Every structure is written in structure tokens, then in C-alpha cells.
């Protein structure tokens, strides 16, 4: 049995140590349990995992006292190649985990790092690919893989490196439900082979059937962790801790018998999009109506982001996209910004130097400080108003991205995964405010998500992209 231990750890991101993020924390995890660490977004989950993985303090922050060890070996004293056999980390963003071009070359890079004899490499790689069910992806370019495939490739790297512990930082944030379920099954199999598993995630539905204990992480002035065995976990207790149990909907259903007037706003006619030689969208015809909420589902790589990109002229397309009967390619539409767009990665949409400017910049209707203050307070970022948007946590960045677009007048608001990396409270806060604004202004909201429950609870119409075609689904079939 392997042990991963925090011993009297005090950590902060500044040298002064005046505001320690972690104060005298001691906790031990053993490899016999799958442990899930959860908590509200921005509470320091990723920081905790980066410390456990030895990434901090070597890459950022200051460890003022204590140490983190695996089986008594202090991680801070180990070089990366010595750490790799003990700890492997799977990160949240699948796009920024690889440095080589193909899956095979990435695996060779990993094995070369830990001085694996070259004659043993082909067998290790073959076994790792077979275990993850991605033998067919061996020669594929990593850039051409979907989010789910990239995470499977990353898991294959970890299997090849064979560390004692696997640390996973919200590994399914960009992955569809089917791929997530497959990955969980593989991770459970690795655990049965003796690997210690430590997961940071705010969505528990995948982990509840397999995990042994849950740690709730709270951060007021410093980090506080409370741990519970699975026997002690109930729906009521999860809700008390701010976690939405899988069986509970995000919100009570409204009156669905109310028929909204049919008033087309965005018409898509014979839309076909190629990315390179691959046809992603195949002759799509659909009309979006005013004042309705549309949810777009589909597996990773099914073309959700491509569809949104085409509507926003990010990609070239064949066919027509009309907003109020006018072609979106027309300069007048392009200049007015009548279509708002919240990107999948919130960093893609930051245009200002501070959080406050991010809300006020580019507004057609002038907003004074007194008007922007409630917006920032509403998303819990007033205290960060003079910070750079890039200094916020992933969850905070997402909230700012959504709020800044809501402050801006547009007729159609497109949100690519608006609740990505958000806990329950923030998910409902974002969705409620989006829907409220939409109703108030009579605009149309189109959002993509991997969360079927979210689509079911908030959307008037659920669409799914399958093999390049857009299909309208009736809710009960979900």
C-alpha cells in the first residue's frame, strides 16, 4: 500500500506568506481508496492537486513549512524524472498536455524521459494503447483528436509511465458523457491493479459509483478539508455541502405548456463546413426562434464548436446563415456584434486589462461604476475588479466571461459550454441569470453542454449533433 501525505503544509503564492492559501495542513491518502476532492470553484482544488503532484512549489508558489511525500519520499526534493514513477497527473485542458505530434511519439517521449530501455518501449506502448482502447489512434496527429480521445491518449501516457499514484484534475471537463464513463472504468481498473487514485472534480456523478471517500475542500482564509467515507454520504449531505447529487435536477421545471410565439431570428440554410479535408457539418438546415433557449448536445468532436464558429464566421462554410433575414457575412452585421459569443475557453474572450474593464469595454449603452458593481458582486468578483482576468481561477474566468457578454446588447447569445468547470451553485447562478436576461431582452440563447441534465432543465429545445447532422430531440427521450 502506497501513501501520499501532506505533513504540516503551509503554502502561499507570495514570498511574504501574509495570506497563506494552505495553513498547517496534514492529511494522508492511501492507495487502497479512490479519493475524490470536491468543493466550490475557486476554493483551491487545482492548487491542492498541483502540490500533491509535486508541480508546486517547483513551478509556482512558496512552501513555507512542511512537506508532501509519497511513501516518505519528499516530492520537493525529487527531479521530474524521479517523480514520474511515483506520481502521474492528468490535467483539465487536454490541448496543453502534449509536446509531440503523434500519439506514438508522445508515448516514446514519456518512456525516454524515465530512461526506459529502447527494446522494451514497443511492448509497453502497445499494452498501454490496448488498455485504453486506442490502438487505432497510435499514428494519429494529437491535434486531430477530440477532447475525449486526447484524455485517453493522456491516460495511455500515464499507463506507460506506470506511476504509483494517478492524480486527475477535472479530467472530464471537456469530455462527453460516453467517453467520461469509459475513462472512469479504465481508472477503476488501474486502481484494482494497485494504483492510488486522487481526483479533483466538482461533478461527482461519474465518481460516486466507484470512489471510496470524498473530501470536501473549503477555503475561507485558509484551506480546510473534511473527509467522509462513502457510507456516510447522502443526497442531503451533498446538497448541504453545495454539491448537486446526480438524481436531483438543477431547477424545478416551469410550465412547459406555455407556447412561445414563433418568430424566426437565426436561419441556417444548407450549412456545410469542412475542417481540412474532413466534413464536420453536413447540409444543416435549422431555424432558431426568438426568446427561446436551445441546448446543443453531442459527443466530443461532433462539431458543436465548429457550428458556433461558422455562425461567428470563424470558419469558412458553404450555405447561408441569416440573422433577421440578413446574411451574417454582411459587414453591417459583422460590425454591430448582434451575435454574442461566450467561448469554451474563457481566456479566449478576454479583451481588457482588468476585471472591471472587461465588463465595461465595448458597451454600446454606457454603464457607470454603480451599474457594473452589482454585476461583479453577483458573480463574486467585485473583490477582484482590479486584477487581470488571466489571474482568476478557471471557474472565476468562466463567470466573468458570461457576465461580460450579458452586460452587452445582442440578439442571439451563443455560449460554448457556459458551465464548464463550475460547481452546482455557480452553474445554476450562471444559467438562471442567462435565462433571466434572455427573457428580459427577448434574445435567443443557444448553449452547448455535455451535461444532459442541464440541457433538460434549462432548454426549451434540445438539439444534438450526430455525424454532421443537427437533430431536434424530444426531452423525454434523453
Amino acid at each position, binding site marked *: 500500500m502506497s501513501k501520499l501525505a501532506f505533513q504540516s503544509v503551509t503554502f502561499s503564492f507570495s514570498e511574504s506568506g501574509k495570506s497563506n492559501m494552505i495553513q498547517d495542513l496534514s492529511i494522508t491518502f492511501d492507495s487502497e481508496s479512490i479519493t475524490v476532492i470536491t468543493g466550490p470553484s475557486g476554493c483551491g482544488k487545482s492548487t491542492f492537486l498541483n502540490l500533491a503532484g509535486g508541480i508546486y512549489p517547483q513551478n509556482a508558489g512558496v512552501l513555507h513549512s512542511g512537506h508532501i511525500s509519497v511513501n516518505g519520499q519528499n516530492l520537493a526534493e525529487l527531479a521530474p524524472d524521479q517523480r514520474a514513477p511515483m506520481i502521474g497527473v492528468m490535467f483539465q485542458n487536454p490541448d496543453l498536455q502534449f509536446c509531440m505530434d503523434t500519439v506514438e*511519439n508522445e508515448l516514446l517521449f514519456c518512456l525516454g524521459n524515465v530512461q526506459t530501455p529502447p527494446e522494451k518501449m514497443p511492448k509497453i506502448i502497445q499494452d498501454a494503447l490496448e488498455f485504453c482502447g486506442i490502438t487505432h489512434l497510435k499514428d494519429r496527429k494529437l491535434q486531430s483528436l477530440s477532447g475525449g480521445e486526447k484524455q485517453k491518449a493522456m491516460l495511455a501516457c500515464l499507463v506507460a509511465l506506470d506511476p504509483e499514484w494517478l492524480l486527475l484534475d477535472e479530467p472530464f471537463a471537456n469530455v462527453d458523457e460516453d467517453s467520461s464513463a469509459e475513462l472512469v472504468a479504465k481508472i477503476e481498473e488501474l486502481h484494482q491493479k494497485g494504483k492510488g487514485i486522487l481526483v479533483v472534480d466538482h461533478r461527482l456523478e461519474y465518481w460516486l459509483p466507484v470512489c471510496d471517500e470524498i473530501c470536501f475542500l473549503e477555503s475561507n482564509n485558509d484551506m480546510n478539508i473534511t473527509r467522509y467515507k462513502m457510507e456516510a454520504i447522502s443526497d442531503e449531505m451533498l446538497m448541504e455541502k453545495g454539491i448537486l447529487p446526480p438524481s436531483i435536477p438543477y431547477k424545478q421545471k416551469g410550465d412547459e405548456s406555455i407556447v412561445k410565439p414563433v418568430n424566426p431570428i437565426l436561419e441556417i440554410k444548407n450549412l456545410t463546413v469542412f475542417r481540412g479535408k474532413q466534413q464536420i457539418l453536413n447540409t444543416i438546415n435549422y431555424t432558431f426562434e426568438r426568446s427561446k433557449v436551445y441546448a446543443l448536445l453531442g459527443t466530443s468532436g461532433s462539431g458543436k464548436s465548429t457550428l458556433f464558429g461558422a455562425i461567428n464566421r470563424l470558419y469558412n462554410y458553404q450555405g447561408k446563415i441569416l440573422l433577421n433575414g440578413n446574411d451574417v457575412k454582411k459587414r453591417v452585421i459583422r460590425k454591430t456584434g448582434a451575435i454574442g459569443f461566450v467561448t469554451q475557453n474563457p481566456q479566449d474572450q478576454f479583451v481588457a486589462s482588468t476585471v472591471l474593464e472587461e465588463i465595461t469595454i465595448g458597451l454600446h449603452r454606457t454603464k457607470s461604476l454603480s451599474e457594473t458593481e452589482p454585476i461583479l458582486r453577483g458573480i463574486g468578483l467585485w473583490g477582484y475588479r482590479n486584477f487581470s482576468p488571466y489571474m482568476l481561477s478557471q471557474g472565476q474566468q468562466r463567470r466573468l466571461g458570461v457576465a461580460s457578454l450579458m452586460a452587452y446588447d445582442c440578439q442571439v447569445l451563443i455560449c460554448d459550454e457556459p458551465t464548464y468547470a463550475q460547481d452546482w451553485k455557480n452553474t445554476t447562478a450562471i444559467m438562471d441569470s442567462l435565462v433571466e436576461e434572455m427573457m428580459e431582452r427577448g434574445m435567443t440563447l443557444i448553449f452547448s453542454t455535455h451535461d444532459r441534465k442541464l440541457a433538460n432543465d434549462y432548454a426549451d429545445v434540445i438539439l444534438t449533433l450526430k455525424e454532421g447532422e443537427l437533430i431536434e430531440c424530444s426531452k423525454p427521450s434523453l
Partner: protein
Amino acid sequence: MNALNPVCKLIGIFVPTLILAAVHHPILNISVFVICLLLLLMSRVRVKLLLLLFLPIILASIGMFFTGYHFQVESGAPVNADNWQMTGSAVWNGLTLSSRVLVYAGLGLLFALTTNKIDLIRSLQQQLHLPSIFAYGILAAWNIFPNLMEEYRKTRLAFRARGVYTSPVSPTLLKPMLVKAVLWSNALSIAMESKGFNGSVKRTEFYVIRVGWKDLLFPVVTIGGMVVFVF
């Protein structure tokens, strides 16, 4: 050309390039360019791709020809070309300049279109002992490069979605892109380290890039041929 050792190919192309910089001889330039073209075709580079790549180069070359044609020594232009062994012929002068454009483009494309970047890095590491921190740093940056164009589009779109219209070359777009580049490199280096990458220790390599007699012959022939022609 595809099968040649990348480092030998690099030396065999780079050294003649330096020699050509000091020589102004259109026949030599055009001969080397034709050889490059033949080698590219023999290396099964797609003709369509070659045509597309050479189109702007030929235009630039024609432009340089007329520059040299009109501004030769006897034209009265303030160009003193006596020390560069140019003749007074306007045509010869034009050819000298335009053929330089062709030969540099030819040599550059010969290397770029027949070399696998991963093999080049492996070869630089194994034959020239390039530190792995540089080698894999370059590869990581290289593999992020295709995303840059998409990032540029996304950044423009972000401004447009907020009603801020930016021109295609607006410096406003640079700031978010620079911030992202720094964040990317940080995330990527952390991911590489978490996979055990340590630039200061010896690695094991599965693909060994060998140096055969054909590989050694290439720089000998190219550099030797150039020296013989010049001197």
C-alpha cells in the same frame, strides 16, 4: 532526399547558402536552383504544392530582375557595384539579383519540404548533442504553432462579440495573444515535467538516427562542388 540524415542535409544545404551569399554569379545560382527543383521532384513533393509555393517567389524574382536591370552600374544610380564583380550589362545585373531570390528559396524549400521536423530534432540531439531542453522545447512550440492562426481568429471574434471592431493587423490583438502564449508555455512545461521530462539528465531514445556513407557524401558533394565552381 527524404531519407538523408537531417543534420548532414542541413550542413550540406546551409554551407553552400553561405558561399552563395559571397558570390554573384547568375549561372551558378540558376544551376543550383534547377538542381534543387529536380531534387524536390525526385523526392515526390507534390507539384501543386511546389507551384503554389514558387508563385510568390517567382514574382519576387521578376521584381528583383527589373530592379537590377534599371539600377546597374552605368545607369547613374547611386550603386557602386564595382567591388562585387558585376559587369555593366543591365541584363546580367538583373539576372544576378533575381537568381539569388530563386536559389535561396530553392535551397530553403528543399530542406523544409524533405525533412521531418521530429527526425531533425532527434538528429540534432544525437549527432550535434543539442540539449534536450532546447530540442523538446522547440518541438512543443512547433506543435502549438498550428493553433496560432485559430487563436488569432478567436481573439478577433472575441473583440467583435463585444462590439469592438479590430483591423486584421491591429496591435490590440497582440496583448491577449501574448498572454495566452505565456500561459500555454507554462501549462505545457508543467505537463512535460509531470511526464518525467528533465532537461539535465540523459534520456533513452527508441529511434536512433544513423549516419551512413550516403549521408556524409551529400555535404561533401554540395560543399565540394560549390568550392570547385567558385575557385
